[in-house]
């Protein structure tokens, strides 16, 4: 039976349908500050973070380790108290409530399945604490195990399950009490690559089917980009940017976001004037003129940075065209679908170019060849920091 319906999409067959989407705010974080320790040794984990997560949204907190994303998740769950600020869950202020009084459940990074309880007892744990009656618990547990396709393994102990199966038990256990918000703390990081990729699709499907608001914490940008409705990029305890996957990749607001999401080339420039459609012109130290779309409102003479994604640059034969930037080919790295090429501008600045092998463009060059770079329209993004 399990083979007939791929993935976790059993949920539709079970009648767990997505409720109508509303514009309601599920979780609202208001000016949250969290400091660990006191005095000169104190560490600020969250520095005035404010954000709203909509009902029914797949929201991701993305950032490098130590950026405060897990601390924020633990604050929503109730495991950490905050130094300052407020947390609202569907309009109710919750920061004073202990974790067991919050209608929020968590999928932990290491699953945290209770090792002395079988699979069904693990899934039933939350329902038992909520004092549901035995018949209701039993039917909900089997419904949940069917949802994650583990109904055959109900009597196993966690230690007898594979990593992927434990992951599914953790999901079933967290979803069983039908929380208003599901928190996921890097739940895929312990799985191997293939399973991780499959689980991404399943998690997204599960979120859409159940209609529960998911708050997902990860340091893996690919995970964030593939699953999320919106992503908050965090660094050093602050939210750097909130937006869709497309927003944060194509239109980063600062150098951190541009550099953290994907690969990019960052060049120091000086703003020289304005161009059509809100674009501005600027010039690098060695006199390369670029037209770019700015993040913010630059003034003539401002020092700023330009971010150019390597796949938006094409490596061509040397050219006298006005927009061609002369360069020397350095190292070529064959990546299968693409070839990545490090080239040097005349002043030695290293630029990364990635071109699809379908065009065969980069493969015709060898190390030391003279070449030229051509930027796609709108490839250059001006960042004001």
């Amino acid at each position, binding site marked *: 039976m399990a083979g007939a319906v791929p993935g976790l999409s059993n949920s539709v067959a079970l009648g767990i349908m997505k409720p109508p989407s509303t514009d309601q705010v599920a979780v609202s974080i208001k000016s949250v500050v969290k400091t660990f320790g006191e005095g000169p040794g104190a560490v600020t984990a969250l520095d005035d973070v404010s954000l709203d997560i909509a009902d029914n949204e797949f929201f991701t907190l993305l950032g490098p380790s130590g950026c405060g994303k897990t601390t924020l998740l633990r604050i929503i*769950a109730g495991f950490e108290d905050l130094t300052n600020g407020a947390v609202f869950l569907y309009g109710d202020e919750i920061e004073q409530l202990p974790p*067991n009084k919050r209608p929020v459940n968590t999928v932990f990074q290491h699953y945290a399945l209770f090792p002395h309880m079988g699979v069904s007892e693990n899934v039933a*744990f939350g329902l038992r604490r909520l004092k549901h009656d035995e018949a209701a618990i039993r039917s909900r547990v089997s419904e949940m195990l069917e949802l994650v396709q583990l109904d055959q393994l109900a009597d196993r102990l966690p*230690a007898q399950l594979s990593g992927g199966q434990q992951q599914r038990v953790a999901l079933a256990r967290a979803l069983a009490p039908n929380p208003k918000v599901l928190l996921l703390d890097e739940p895929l990081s312990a799985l191997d690559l293939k399973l991780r990729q499959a689980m991404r699709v399943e998690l997204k499907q599960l979120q859409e089917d159940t209609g529960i608001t998911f708050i997902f914490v990860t340091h893996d940008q690919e995970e964030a980009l593939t699953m999320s409705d919106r992503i908050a990029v965090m660094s050093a305890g602050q939210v750097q940017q909130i937006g869709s996957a497309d927003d944060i990749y194509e239109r980063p607001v600062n150098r951190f976001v541009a550099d953290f999401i994907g690969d990019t080339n960052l060049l120091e420039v000086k703003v020289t004037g304005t161009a059509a459609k809100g674009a501005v012109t600027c010039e690098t130290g060695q006199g390369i003129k670029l037209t770019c779309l700015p993040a913010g409102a630059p003034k003539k003479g401002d020092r700023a940075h330009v971010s150019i994604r390597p796949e938006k640059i094409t490596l061509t034969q040397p050219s006298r065209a006005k927009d061609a930037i002369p360069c020397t080919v350095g190292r070529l790295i064959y990546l299968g679908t693409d070839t990545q090429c490090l080239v040097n501008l005349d002043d030695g600045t290293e630029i990364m170019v990635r071109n699809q092998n379908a065009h065969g463009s980069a493969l015709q060059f060898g190390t030391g060849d003279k070449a030229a770079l051509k930027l796609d329209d709108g490839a250059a993004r001006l960042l004001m920091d």
Partner: protein
Amino acid sequence: MARNSPRTLRRYPGFRWVAGGCLLLLYGPMIVITIYSFNSIRSITTWGGFSFDWYLKAFNNPNIQSATANSLIIAIAAATTATALAVAASLAMIRGPRFKGSEFGFALINLPLMVPEIVTAVASLIFFLAVGINLGLTTILLAHIVFCIPFAYMPIAARLEGIEGFYEDAARDLYASRWETFRYVLLPMMLPGILSGYVLAFIISLDDFIITNLVAGPGATTLPLAIYGMVRVGFTPEINAISTMMLGVSMIFVTVSYLIGRSGAKSKGS
């Protein structure tokens, strides 16, 4: 890796002799005691044939009977109380917030391990006399509880330290109160440590001599005191029989404790 394997260890010069000598010193006397407990004649040096006479005699000796009963009552009561206190102490020390003097608390719990037993014995005796508690089973029990705590504490604390905090987070997240978190998650996970702590405390209480001897007072006698009393009068195979039975009980307990610890380590998994 290969350096540490038993095969290469055996190649060290003199290893066999040192190991054999140690084993002989440790287990030789016990083997002799066990063998002579089945002697049919009243000698502990010449073998007169096989019999269970001395075991029957020991069983029917009223002094031994009452001493055994006292020992068991005290061992059970002391081990139970000490284990309960050790569980509470380990939760406070390991899971509680760091408090002022928590290191002092740790030292205090483990003090009976460092202080020479005779010092504890004399100090306890003086204390009991000073506060005016009549020496007897009560004083033995109080003294035993105190020196059993570190023995119960060690395996329990080691076990608790090995339990990651996220299990309790998960329980709290799934609507368990603090008590339910302890009752349904932490306690079952600590159980192997608690059982081995209990067994250790029980054994330590059962065979204590020095402290017991000082705080026992005239009437109350435990098994080690009774054996000592008999040895002073004269050595008979009856003592061998009693010692062999104590040895058997200890071995059973240690084996059980080991098996529990092993199954605990296994069920903890990855």
